[in-house]
């Protein structure tokens, strides 16, 4: 792995727990709330101008990790550093800087925009609040942002409900870009879009990356999309990072059986019917106690897998996997 000095964002052994709501009695008795592990000791790095794809199925903790980086979830353990400094450092200047340098793009274009604000209002508020441009220049900056994300300026006074999903997603991007960030966390930015629109947004993203030199954490469940946009890929399963590597390593030489299973399951536009093996259902709701979390579904699992949590095996400078058999 690359050294710290070149790293923009460092996530080290981060734990995130979802607390069940504390009752009044809990608060009075100073009892901690019951918790569910959403992310368990995840570690990764992001270098400037790099796109890291974070894939996994629903409930894998990928979204949570992305949000934890932006302090939208409290972190229960480990640390997150941005440019070598903890993001939880409460200095107001630092926090303000973080808010400008790290931005997020959300999945659902329907809920990510305030339904009562027009495009100009949404963007103008950000510009004014962070004093990106002088007040007099706000209108021009809004127009510039619209151009950047490929929206006609006639959209400026529309409310979200008068726009299509793709257009809204562009507004969401513009909002994130308004503060001129260095790092973008994109949480399933194209999952809710039809494929024809999805391609438009993906192209826009790669343009923006090239133009502004953005680093991106690209959270998605769709492997083909991740493959398309990422330099490196991290795979999560049930709160744990199970494999990390370059695009080629993950897609051509997957080391973890889960990654392999994922890759195998991706439907291809091939003009032939595929024969798939019929399997019994696995109960995804069932809790895993001890051992590799993937063991219940793993075709290669042996007793050891069910008893011992696998350590992360380093396969190359850029490639690691959390499987007992990764190295073999």
């Amino acid at each position, binding site marked *: 792995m690359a050294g710290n000095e070149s790293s923009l964002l460092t996530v080290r052994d981060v734990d995130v727990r979802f607390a069940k709501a504390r009752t009044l009695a809990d608060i009075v008795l100073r009892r901690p709330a019951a918790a569910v592990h959403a992310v368990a000791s995840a570690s990764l790095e992001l270098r400037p101008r790099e796109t890291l794809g974070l894939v996994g*199925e*629903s409930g894998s903790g990928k979204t949570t990790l992305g949000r934890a980086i932006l302090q939208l979830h409290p972190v229960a353990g480990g640390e997150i550093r941005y440019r070598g400094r903890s993001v939880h450092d409460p200095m107001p200047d630092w926090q303000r800087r973080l808010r400008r340098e790290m931005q997020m793009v959300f999945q659902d274009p329907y809920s990510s925009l305030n339904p009562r604000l027009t495009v100009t209002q949404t963007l103008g508020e950000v510009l004014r609040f962070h004093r990106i441009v002088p007040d007099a220049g706000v209108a021009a900056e809004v127009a510039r942002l619209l151009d950047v994300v490929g929206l006609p300026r006639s959209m400026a006074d529309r409310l979200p409900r008068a726009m*299509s999903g*793709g*257009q809204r997603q562009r507004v969401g991007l513009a909002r994130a870009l308004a503060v001129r960030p260095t790092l973008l966390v994109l949480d399933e930015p194209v999952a809710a879009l*039809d*494929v*024809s*629109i*999805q*391609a*438009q947004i*993906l*192209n826009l993203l*790669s343009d923006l990356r090239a133009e502004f030199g953005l680093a991106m954490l690209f959270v998605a*469940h*769709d*492997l*083909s*999309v991740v*493959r*398309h946009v990422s330099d490196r890929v991290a795979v999560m399963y049930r709160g744990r990072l199970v494999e990390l590597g370059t695009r080629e390593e993950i*897609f051509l030489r997957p080391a973890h059986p889960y990654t392999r*299973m*994922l*890759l*195998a*399951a*991706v*439907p*291809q*536009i*091939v*003009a*032939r*019917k*595929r*024969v*798939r*093996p*019929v*399997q*019994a*259902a*696995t*109960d*995804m*709701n069932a809790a895993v106690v001890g051992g590799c979390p993937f063991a219940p*579904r793993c075709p290669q699992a042996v007793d050891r897998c069910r008893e011992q949590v696998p350590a992360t095996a380093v396969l190359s400078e850029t490639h690691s996997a959390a499987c007992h058999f990764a190295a073999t």
Partner: protein
Amino acid sequence: MSQATEPLLRVRDLEIAFKVRGGEVLANRGVSLDVAAGETLGLVGESGSGKSVLCRAILRLLPSPPARTKRGRVLFDGTDLVTLPEARLREIRGTDIAMVFQNPMTSLSPVWPIGDQVTEGLRIHRGMNRIEARERGIALLQSIGIPEAARRYDDHPWQWSGGMLQRAVIAMAMACSPRLLLADEPTTALDVTIQEQILALLTDLQARSGMAMVLVSHDIGVVAETCDRIAVMYAGMLVETGPAAEVFGRPRHPYTLGLMRSSPRMDEHAERLQPIPGQPPDLAKLAAGCPFVDRCAFAREDCRHAPVALREVAQGHASACLFPEAVR
């Protein structure tokens, strides 16, 4: 299995209108298609293309008002379902034609045990009593890969994971051994590995029972890998039909081609995708001529005015494009 010359389901010139404020919107515009016994038809298109409406219209599940069948016939084994009395239609629903829906979490009533819901059709249509139905139900659940089916028969939907629930929904559909299964986006709400399992299960069931299946999906990968024949819908119309290999090997409609080029591929890496420009048309404002004209790279002046209809471009392969040969 009947002969391919006499299709099990023939939809002819079906036109479905929805009443909206100030008028009507056509959600299906003269759809005609055939499904032969034992074959799998993939119905693909983006949201709003009318594929779900078509599925429901076949079983007359659309609420009326606002939906209305303006024109056309739905012949199932020679019987026109459009004009069939409600009581007769109910005998066909669930016995001859069954349906699987998109969201397994909401497809089952939360207040009744899963087993009861799975076997309800048996009790209604086959006159089984509770004990017989239970026995058969447990066998059904087992056959679709639910472990410990006897114990889990009385579970409630919230106790199962999405993948298991979708299996239950499929079991419910299969209970009376239908001759045609309409599967409306059966895997959209599921993770890719679970999608794989469900598609495997559907394919397997179909092979074993010899039923015909209409698989609706927005994911061309899914239909490409699963279906014998493909029907592509756009703006309420069928724009291309044909054998899967033909349609995806040599698409004869620019929309089909656009869909394929918009999708990121797993097998090759392209720096840029080729999205379909623009937005899908507003169904309420469709003019005469080809609905795809505004987004089409091959459009000519004629496309705006000339009526479009499916025309055979090769054996069993039809396109609604005026200039199918130009598409490449």
